[in-house]
């Protein structure tokens, strides 16, 4: 669990590094970090899909569900 939490934190930092304050706002708006279903595979795909369009946690959730990514590991 701690390992997953650390990975989630790093993934959010990476996405924030790319998309800046925009994604930080989306992540911080209503999300608690431990419930955020971001995993490596998700983030990998989402970087390609310009997750920067998400402006709120609802939109972020919609994008995540669109990719059916919850706890999927990368292959």
């Amino acid at each position, binding site marked *: 669990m701690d390992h997953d939490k650390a*990975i989630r934190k*790093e*993934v959010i930092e*990476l*996405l*924030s*590094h*790319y*998309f*800046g*304050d*925009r*994604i*930080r706002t989306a992540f911080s708006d209503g999300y608690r970090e431990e419930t955020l279903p971001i995993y*490596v595979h998700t*983030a*990998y*795909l989402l*970087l*390609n*899909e*310009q997750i*920067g*369009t998400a*402006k709120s946690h609802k939109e972020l959730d919609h994008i995540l569900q669109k990719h059916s990514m919850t706890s999927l*590991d*990368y292959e």
Partner: protein
Amino acid sequence: MNNQRLTIGVCAGLFIVSLGLYWLFPQNEMIELLRYASILSSLLLAFSGGLYSIDKYGFNSTKSLTLILLTIGIGCFLIGETLWTYYEYLMNTDPFPSLADVFYLAAYPLFFWALFREINLTKVSWHTLSRSLKFLLITISALFMVVVCYFGVYLAYSPYETVLTNMIAISYGMGDVALIVATIALLVLAWEFRGGALARIWMMFFFSFMLNLLADVLFAIFTDAYNAQGTFQRNLIDTVWILSYVLFAHAMFSFGLSIEAAQQQLLKLKGKPHKSRKK
């Protein structure tokens, strides 16, 4: 040396070599040929940057169409410049108006489409911009449009030229006017992604397009001096265009490099080797 530093090195190196060719060496046949080569090289580098980033993003990504439009746009500039060189240097004829203008002008709607598509996709929060900032953006846009309209449209018209020549000449000015709006909007795009790598890339595009506009305005003002060759005005205008293209190249490469770097870091998090770039 990582790829980002290599890109910066190549772009900076090309610009420095160009500076030397234009400002340190007197005009002769070899230097003239190398000057043409430096403009074409900077455009080729920008085009290569576009192809590189399209490869990294793939064709199914949200951003792909934007990258494709920008790449085709700079590709049109490359073809136009190649034709211009062919007419002026090899054939020793006046390259205006010619087939080169078709390609130069074709780039404008592509750039416009790409930038406005990106602004639309990002869903910019216009309502969160302060009134003073909106006023400043509108004022700056209006000022640039007045300058470009005067030098690029009004002065471009000549009663001694044919209708076709006047239409082509005025089209450049109108294209620049339209591009001003898109370029200023890039500032808002960069603001939306502030603190991130994307913001820096959009700012590079902003400066690239602004420099291109500046060179276009200077060309409209000093057309005769430019066509005379070897003049201070020609050297200055070509230098500004080259800087614009080199910045464009760096921005295009940065799209692909930054997403590749982020993806590789994500893969490292899981401790797996990098097998494929995209799904």
